[in-house]
Structures are given as C-alpha cells and as structure tokens.
C-alpha cells in the first residue's frame, strides 16, 4: 500500500500556464514533506515543509502543507520549458522502521511545450 501518492502522474502544459501538483500521504509519525525536481538523474531539492499553512516560495514555485488533510501541493506559475521534469514528493517519517529514509511517491512527469 502506497504511503505517498502523487497526482497526476503526468501532465502536459504550454509555456505560461500555471500548474498544481498534488501529494497525499499516510504515515504515522510525520516529520516533514519534501519536494524534489528530477530532470536527468539527481533529484534536486526544492522545498521542505514541516508546518501546516505556511507557504514556501522560491521564484515561480511555491508549496504548502496541510497536516490535517495530509496533503501538499506544489504550484508552478508562468511555466517554462525548463520546468519540464519529474517532480517527486517524499515524506520523512520518524521511527516505525522508516527511520532515516524518505518515502517517495512515484512522481509527476511535467512536460511544458513551447
């Protein structure tokens, strides 16, 4: 049973569009939720979220966490072709055999057409 579920699995948009990527999770001892961008190989870190309702922002990207409803969203405004990548959501869980590792969703593949 997947503990971290991302939707949609893939998305095709045109430059300038705004996209919202979703991540829902189900873990017992939540520590944090992280977003990564994976273009070729190395996932690059985007955001770490630990508190509900506090938006993290970096340029055209922003993300927010809802710990009551157990989900997070990643928004990208004014998309560019360089935003094309797989966006990974991961949850850091305390204890319960998951200590130390991140639990990843399967990712959302975003394609931005010119």
């Amino acid at each position, binding site marked *: 049973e997947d503990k971290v579920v991302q939707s949609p699995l893939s998305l095709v948009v045109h430059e300038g569009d705004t996209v919202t990527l979703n991540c829902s999770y189900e873990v017992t001892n939540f520590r944090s939720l992280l977003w990564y961008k994976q273009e070729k190989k190395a996932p690059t870190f985007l955001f770490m979220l630990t508190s509900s309702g506090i938006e993290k922002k970096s340029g055209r990207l922003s993300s927010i966490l809802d710990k009551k409803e157990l989900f997070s969203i990643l928004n990208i405004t004014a998309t560019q072709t360089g935003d094309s990548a797989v966006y990974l959501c991961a949850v850091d869980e305390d204890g319960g055999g998951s200590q130390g590792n991140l639990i*990843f969703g399967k990712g959302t593949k975003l394609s931005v057409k010119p």
Partner: protein
Amino acid sequence: EAGVTQSPTHLIKTRGQQATLRCSPISGHTSVYWYQQALGLGLQFLLWYDEGEERNRGNFPPRFSGRQFPNYSSELNVNALELEDSALYLCASSRGRTLRETQYFGPGTRLLVL
C-alpha cells in the same frame, strides 16, 4: 561547495556478478542514504549509514549490502546480480538525524545487468 558525488556513472554487469558503487557525501555530512530507482517504481530506500554504522535498511535481500568509511564515504555492494537489479542507484547525504536535515542527492549510478 561540492555536492554528493557517485562513481561510476554507468556500470554494465552480467547475471551472477557483483557490483560495487561508491558515494562521497557533501563535506560535513555524516549520514549517507542509498536508494534504488527502477523503471516505473519510484525511489525505494535501500540503506542508511550514519557515523560508520548501518542504521536502517529497506525491504531488499541481504545480497544488497554496504559500508561507510571513516571519511563518511560509502560503498554499496550488490552480490549475485539479477536482471531486475538494473536501475539507477542514487546516494544522498545529510548532516545527520538529530534535526530535520534535508537529504541532498548525487547524480546516481546507472546499473545494467545483462
């Protein structure tokens, strides 16, 4: 500051052989994590090393093993290779587990088992 480095970038082996993958963490990081990213499966946690000790392992058979050296670099060994071991192996490092420390990923080693 140099990021996480991994070697080799690509590795081709045949069934039954052994593979050794190497990872150097970011300077100052003591924790090293190994993940497997097989096609269509997302990132799966393999092993976590901190301060030279194995702290946790994922649901992988014992032929996946590793170690961490005094300089915090790490090695992942895969014995008796099987075709389904073909995947991208990613290493990540962090400053440890006492605080909510972000994991930063290396570029990965792509292993192909023929």
